């Protein structure tokens, strides 16, 4: 064996040249430097804060907040503590983020599909949508949504109502057309295998409607005048329809068509002679949504005291549907017998929902109820109490046969009859709406790109292979394209979700009371900026972590499924 020769004598001892020792030493030095720097910083901060008598602590959170919050639950007043104010902020943030995530996903997928459309125009418009939104700052967009869009909404007295209030007229005539359409489908469809017959079918339907409309609109002032030009036009349309039908069709089709055309002629005559005048029925339509500069009023959805019982029914239905789905699926797999399990499952859900709704309503309401009338409790008939508006919110929930009460916004008007507000409405502030719209639309542009890229990442060969083994378009999409696309889509989608959650902090710019805005106010009032910023960071980190965890779970599931 050869002697081990040192290449050169060195003043550095051998152990200091050992890479393992060097690594440990390097890390220790790194740590020492880091700790030194941090302690320097912390010491500086501490010194300054002590000079201002503001040692960081968490106990200040129990002091009364003393500020009002624009967007708050009923229980909050300015006497509540900072902690409670912060909780309000957290709730508001979660309200925006949760709704925003769902909405932006839907919108993003929609535009992602548009980006892949065969239609050049649609594709171009979607491309413009994506590029414009992606390339301008969210803050500018939020300002635009709030200061421009929301501020140009009308005053509450002129609130935009949707649908517009009024008495809608539904003419019987329209029902007639529906009947004609279905009759045509029923009687002509089975025979309509060749083109001429299909033309005859279309022609028959169209002439019927045109003839009836002519008879109705242009003739009333000349009931019975057979020389009237409009009447001649009407008669001509009917006769041409008859002749076309007669010559195009033969055999067993002639008579049904003849029946339709004859019926059409008869219908026209009935209009013509005023036997079927503009008869119909009127329906009062009340607005469900009001939009004004003060915000958005939506119908109120109120679960009553019977809601729980009904929810049990629905749950049973859902469970049963799930069991049926699985059980029939297994039968199909083992025996090859096809069972329309989707239909059965749907039936179970609908059946239990409806039956539950009816069953919980069986128990009658008391006829006499105690109400608080000017401080004294008196018994009075339920209907009377209801009309006199004496029922408390609690009572309304108690004295209802339905599990869920859906009430339209009730207009509140002052003595002069000017609209001033709404009762029984789910009200949404313009700040919330602006923030939500801004976040949703901005993020949707990014998601659209992700969805497009994800779907395009699935090689064309995959689709061709799927078609070659006989899968349908839907099956190809469901079983081949989507699982592979989702694998590509989910990681960047997670990033966008995180961005949306973090960007919700821009609420500050448009004075929406989210957790950031409330903590900023708190910091300004209490001077506890170190603690405040720590709490904010912990808040957003937690939210980011939860979203990441959930999305990682989803992701791992897709990775498993596709393998």
């Amino acid at each position, binding site marked *: *064996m*050869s002697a*081990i020769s040192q*290449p050169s004598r060195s003043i550095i001892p051998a152990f200091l*040249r*050992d*890479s*393992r*020792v060097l690594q440990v030493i390097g890390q220790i030095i790194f740590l020492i430097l880091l700790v030194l720097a941090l302690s320097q910083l912390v010491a500086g901060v501490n010194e300054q804060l002590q000079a201002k008598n503001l040692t960081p602590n968490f106990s200040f959170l129990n002091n009364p907040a003393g500020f009002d919050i624009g967007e708050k639950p009923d229980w909050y007043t300015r006497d509540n503590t900072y902690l409670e104010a912060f909780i309000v902020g957290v709730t508001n943030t979660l309200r925006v983020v949760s709704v925003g995530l769902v909405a932006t996903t839907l919108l993003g997928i929609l535009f992602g599909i548009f980006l892949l459309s065969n239609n050049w125009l649609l594709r171009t418009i979607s491309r413009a949508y994506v590029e414009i939104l992606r390339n301008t700052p969210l803050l500018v967009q939020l300002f635009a949504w709030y200061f421009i869009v929301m501020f140009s909404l009308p005053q509450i007295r002129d609130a935009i109502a949707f649908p517009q209030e009024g008495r809608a007229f539904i003419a019987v005539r329209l029902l007639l057309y529906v009947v004609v359409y279905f009759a045509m489908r029923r009687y002509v469809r089975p025979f309509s295998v060749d083109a001429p017959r299909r033309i005859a079918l279309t022609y028959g339907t169209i002439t019927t409607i045109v003839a009836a409309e002519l008879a109705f609109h242009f003739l009333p002032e000349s009931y019975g005048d057979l020389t009237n030009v409009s009447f001649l036009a009407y008669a001509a349309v009917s006769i041409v329809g008859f002749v076309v039908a007669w010559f195009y069709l033969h055999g067993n089709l002639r008579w049904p068509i003849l029946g339709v055309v004859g019926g059409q002629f008869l219908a026209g005559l009935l209009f013509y002679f005023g036997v079927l005048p503009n008869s119909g029925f009127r329906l009062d339509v009340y607005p469900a949504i009001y939009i004004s500069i003060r915000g958005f009023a939506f119908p109120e959805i109120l679960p009553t005291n019977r809601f729980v019982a009904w929810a049990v029914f629905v749950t049973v239905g859902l469970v049963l549907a799930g069991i049926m789905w699985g059980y029939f699926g297994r039968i199909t797999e083992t025996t090859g017998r096809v069972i329309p399990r989707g239909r059965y499952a749907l039936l179970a859900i609908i059946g239990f929902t409806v039956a539950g709704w009816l069953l919980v309503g069986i128990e009658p309401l008391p006829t006499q109820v105690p109400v608080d009338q000017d401080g004294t409790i008196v018994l009075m008939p339920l209907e009377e109490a209801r009309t006199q508006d004496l029922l408390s919110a609690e009572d309304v929930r108690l004295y209802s046969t339905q599990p869920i009460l859906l009430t339209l916004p009730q207009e509140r008007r002052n003595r002069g009859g000017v609209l001033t507000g709404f009762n029984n409405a789910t009200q949404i502030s313009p700040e919330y709406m602006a923030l939500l719209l801004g976040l949703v639309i901005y993020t949707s542009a990014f998601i659209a790109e992700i969805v497009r890229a994800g779907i395009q990442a699935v090689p064309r060969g995959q689709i061709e292979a799927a078609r070659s083994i006989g899968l349908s378009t839907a099956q190809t999409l469901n079983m081949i394209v989507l699982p592979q696309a989702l694998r590509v889509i989910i990681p960047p989608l997670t990033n966008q979700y995180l961005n949306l959650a973090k960007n919700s902090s821009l609420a500050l710019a448009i004075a929406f009371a989210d957790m950031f805005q409330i903590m900023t106010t708190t910091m300004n009032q209490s001077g506890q900026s170190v603690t405040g910023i720590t709490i904010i960071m912990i808040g957003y980190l937690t939210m980011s972590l939860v979203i990441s965890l959930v999305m990682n779970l989803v992701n791992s599931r897709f990775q498993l499924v596709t393998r």
Partner: protein
Amino acid sequence: MSESLVEQGAVTQMADEPIIFCQNVNKWFGEFHVLRDVSLEVMPKEVVVILGPSGSGKSTFIRCINRLEEHQEGQIIVDGMELTHDVRNIAAIRREIGMVFQQFNLFPHKTVLENITLGPMKVRHWPRDRAEAKAQELLNRVGIPEQAAKYPGQLSGGQQQRVAIARALAMEPKIMLFDEPTSALDPEMIKEVLDVMKELARSGMTMLVVTHEMGFAREVADRVIFFDHGRIVEQGTPDYFFEEAQHERTKLFLSQIL
């Protein structure tokens, strides 16, 4: 010129002293015992070909020799320096050993010339002129003098591997390690790489070659080593190895491959 340099490197060694000395080298990947008591001595100017089925640890073994992998037990002494955690030894040993990889591992963002001059300039601190002259000479030697300004992506596999050999030679190593240099090549390109390697062997370079090219082993090798399950099963001259191998595993391997 390079021959003389190699010879200069050789004269510093006593002729009877091995330039690579391995004793009871052991290595594990996690629980998996990948090298088991491998002992080997390689003399200067010796060409050693290592054969063996895939997964037998032969690549890992030669990667241990320039410490791309760390061995956990045993002793490896290269050119009189032991491979330990001593950072200076590692650097010094790598300077003396050239290596050629199966996947070439050329630097795609540098031209062929830059690939070759990088080591001499940054490690040996040669001036640019000298490094470029050396590179051009090596390119001549491997037969592609005209490709100096191109990027690796523009070359064929065989050309890339020849550039890789030139890059390794540019450091004027005493030892060359070849890790399956022809496995990633198309058949018609294998020859051009083997020719360069043969020429190198003839010039007196110490070479450790992991390969499946039996013809090369027969023609060039001074010694053939057969690896299996992380240990040296049998070794000998090519004539002995291919004609009179004793061990069952060697025979089985040769019967499958020949």
